[in-house]
């Protein structure tokens, strides 16, 4: 990681729309040592053209389902003038110098940033390579480069019709100086960008050949599973492993200070061995903690003033002078990610080096973690990335890598450490518990004149990316709140940092926006109800200065049949998303609440403006995906603590949406040429509020605490 990019990180994140502001160029002009040493043409870290004509594109961002390998290869291929069928994709190795995501200054896949951050750099990388191939061809023919054009991997001298393939040009192109400036294609000439190009990873994902970290197989490899302290901060105080050692197939027991691993020939033996361990835990300071203790701490902290993240006008006077004052408190629980592929990491520690195979959203951090644990220099650590069986923010952490390397240090063979589902749910890095306090003032006509929002929660940024916690503000914790688009003359948004170190907390799909959108869009709905106004009309009146937001709101309302009658027991709710992602999304949810307080989602309509669309099919898939993830979280998602222990353990008590419960999801895209916005997370973030507002419409019950299903069951009218 470079200090320069870290310093500039904050200015990027706080810039409206999140457009690419950094001056440095990703990967350009830096030929990769390992790549350049192979024969052929490698003008930058993303492209290699071999003399046999094979074209390899190196994917800096992790593919975890969001389609980044498809869309990023489209950006390169568009400007390089090759077809998707002509290229082969490879995971890029860890290298912050070559592959840093400009948003972070590190090789990180997160924050719905891949297309936002790489839209221009990858196009430039492709265009540079194209220009060099054309220059090589022109030199071969001794003609003006302007008389040549590239298409489908071939350069043609237009006047004479002579052609040379990229493969034939590779050696010569490698000697052409890298141009300082290249012309990018005019968007009207795009042949790939904006089209629903097929995903290159689909064939391997339908026949079992796709390789995830958990699928790694090495000669002599052993398999381990692990039992870590059930309480954060707990230690192993005593261990009787006799019965575990007696399980056929168990080879070794590895004891760490906070965990015990059973190393075996296969997972079955490892699991049985782990179950046979008798571990005495010293639970430590969190031994008696329950969820109620956490909420009590947050509630108390919410009584104190926070650091002001946004202030418009004079909120105190406006509130004091309002005709009507509305107050509310909202709560958002701890959440687990529950990726389908449980945490796993394969490590081979040798005296002179360490090799790691895993799936990671932070490949360079995984490498640094392995170097730290082994004490080896970075260059002695090799990390191989794989497809991720779900990321959702969980694989932004390297706890499972660190732990696997600690275990592997004691094993004289490559060892694959695989967590059971129970271990995965109970040792997650959870979405924090947030507590929000609101006050708003309405004038005599019901128009909002003051808005006060106090956000209370821990700072993930202070740990994860310290420049993102500045002057007392965690830019993630306030994301989706400080961009409030509603035209209210007096606004105060505060952040109170309050740490409850009883669970590790981190990013969950939709990050800070997921929590803020739920509370902001629920509270604005409350104001509409107090004013006795229609929720869409109420928002519309406050969005006159935000045309893109207004467009998606109107479109979603129209497509959903807003205002038309619904059957008894049903209701529609609306929510609008604004954030640092540069994407506008309005959702209308229709729910049915039956007598048993069972919430069924009947229909979801989303209208999306994410600016320039790279692949509309993937954009739609990501919205559908985000909505399903959001429904699971909103209806049932909740991690609770008792005696310091997470009470959930598997899909029986950490319920997620299933196929038979999934409603129709209609996604309408607003196409324009604005800068590309993020698309992996908005669908998740906007869903909880739309559902809560729909439950209110159906039942008259305002649920200010997630998840909704148990909340509804326990509420009284």
């Amino acid at each position, binding site marked *: 990681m470079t200090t320069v990019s870290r310093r500039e990180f904050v200015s990027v994140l706080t810039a409206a729309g999140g457009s690419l502001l950094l001056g440095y160029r990703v990967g350009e002009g830096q030929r990769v040592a390992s790549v350049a040493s192979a024969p052929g043409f490698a003008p930058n870290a993303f492209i290699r053209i071999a003399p046999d004509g094979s074209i390899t594109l190196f994917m800096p961002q992790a*593919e*975890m*389902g*969001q*389609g980044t390998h498809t869309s990023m290869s489209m950006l390169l291929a568009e400007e390089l003038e090759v077809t998707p069928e002509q290229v082969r994709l490879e995971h890029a190795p860890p290298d912050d110098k070559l592959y840093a995501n400009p948003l972070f200054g590190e090789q990180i896949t997160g924050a719905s940033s891949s297309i936002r951050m790489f839209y221009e750099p990858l196009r430039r990388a492709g265009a540079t390579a194209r220009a060099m191939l054309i220059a090589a061809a022109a030199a071969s023919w001794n003609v003006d480069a302007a008389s040549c054009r590239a298409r489908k991997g071939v350069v043609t001298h237009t006047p004479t019709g002579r052609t040379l393939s990229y493969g034939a040009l590779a050696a010569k192109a490698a000697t052409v100086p890298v141009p300082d400036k290249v012309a990018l294609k005019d968007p009207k000439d795009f042949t790939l960008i904006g089209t629903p190009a097929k*995903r290159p*990873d*689909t*064939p*391997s*994902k*339908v*026949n*079992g*050949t*796709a*390789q*995830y970290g*958990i*699928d790694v*197989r090495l000669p002599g490899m052993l*398999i381990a599973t692990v039992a870590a302290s059930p309480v954060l901060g707990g230690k192993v105080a005593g261990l009787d492993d006799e019965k575990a050692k007696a399980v*056929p197939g168990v080879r070794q027991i590895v004891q760490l200070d906070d965990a015990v691993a059973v190393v075996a*020939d*296969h*997972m*079955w033996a490892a*699991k049985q061995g782990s179950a046979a361990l008798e571990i005495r835990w010293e639970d430590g300071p969190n031994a008696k903690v329950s969820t109620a203790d956490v909420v009590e701490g947050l509630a108390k902290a919410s009584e104190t003033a926070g650091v002001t993240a946004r202030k418009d006008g004079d909120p105190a006077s406006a509130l004091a002078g309002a005709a009507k004052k509305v107050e509310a408190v909202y709560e958002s629980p701890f959440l687990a990610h*529950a*990726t*389908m*592929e*449980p945490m796993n990491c394969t490590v081979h520690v040798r005296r002179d080096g360490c090799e790691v195979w895993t799936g990671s959203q932070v490949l360079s951090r995984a490498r640094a973690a392995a170097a730290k644990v082994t004490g080896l220099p970075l260059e002695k650590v090799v990390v191989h990335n794989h*497809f*991720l*069986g*779900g990321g*959702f923010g969980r694989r932004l952490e390297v706890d499972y890598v660190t732990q696997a390397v600690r275990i592997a240090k004691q094993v004289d063979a490559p060892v694959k450490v*695989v967590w*059971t*589902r129970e271990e995965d749910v109970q040792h997650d890095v959870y979405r924090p518990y947030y507590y929000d306090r609101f006050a708003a003032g309405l004038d005599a006509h019901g128009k909002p004149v003051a808005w006060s929002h106090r956000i209370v929660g821990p700072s993930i940024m202070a740990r994860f990316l310290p420049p993102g916690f500045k002057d007392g503000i965690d830019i993630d914790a306030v994301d989706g709140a400080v961009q409030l688009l509603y035209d209210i003359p007096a606004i105060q948004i505060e952040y109170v940092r309050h740490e409850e170190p009883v669970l590790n907390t981190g990013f969950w799909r939709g990050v800070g926006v997921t929590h803020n959108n739920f509370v902001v869009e629920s509270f604005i709905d409350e104001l509409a109800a107090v004013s006795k106004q229609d929720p869409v009309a109420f928002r519309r009146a406050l969005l006159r200065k935000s045309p893109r937001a207004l467009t998606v709101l109107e479109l979603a309302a129209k497509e959903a049949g807003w205002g038309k009658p619904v059957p008894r027991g049903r209701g529609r709710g609306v929510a609008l998303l604004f954030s640092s992602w540069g994407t506008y999304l309005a959702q209308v949810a229709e729910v049915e609440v039956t007598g048993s307080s069972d919430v069924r989602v009947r229909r979801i309509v989303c209208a999306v403006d994410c600016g320039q669309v790279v692949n509309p*099919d993937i954009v739609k*898939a990501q919205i*559908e*995906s*985000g*909505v*399903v*993830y959001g429904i699971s979280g909103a209806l049932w998602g909740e991690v609770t603590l008792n005696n310091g222990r997470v009470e959930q353990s*598997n*899909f*029986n008590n950490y319920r*997620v*949406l*299933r*196929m*038979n419960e*999934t409603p*129709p*999801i209609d996604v309408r895209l607003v196409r324009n040429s604005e800068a590309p916005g993020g698309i992996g997370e908005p669908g998740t973030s906007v869903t909880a509020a739309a559902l809560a507002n729909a439950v209110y419409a159906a039942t008259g019950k305002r649920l200010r605490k997630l998840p909704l299903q148990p909340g509804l069951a326990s509420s009284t009218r």
Partner: protein
Amino acid sequence: MELTINGRKREVGVPSDMPMLWVLRDVLGMTGTKFGCGMALCGACTVQLDGQAIRSCVTPVSAAAGKAITTIEAIGNTAAGKKVQEAWIALDVPQCGYCQSGQIMSASALLAKNPHPTDSDIDAAMGGNICRCGTYRRIRAAIKHAAQGGRR
């Protein structure tokens, strides 16, 4: 113990109570079948036993003796499996893809028995397969696509 996997006889020396999932993945190196929950709650480990979709994470290998085991690696050799894989590709169903082996094994078993499933047939057959990427709408559409012989 002798097993018949994808039409091939395989001899494995494993405990009879060992779940088939780990025999496939860790003993035979057939990693297309996935581990998700270990409790038959998520369907990621679904394989077919004599054409029936079963959860291999809770099925002892002894239960497979004398029966035909079919996994994702060979489901494309069956008529229904081939149609399902083609439909999955046509509609670009997978996202992260981790659950899709199990989804395809369940969908193929459904279509082999019931070539024209209704929505509620699909719900009943697929409700045990979790997808955290939320590809459910596309899975449903792809099953119908496959049932119609690839016509859209």
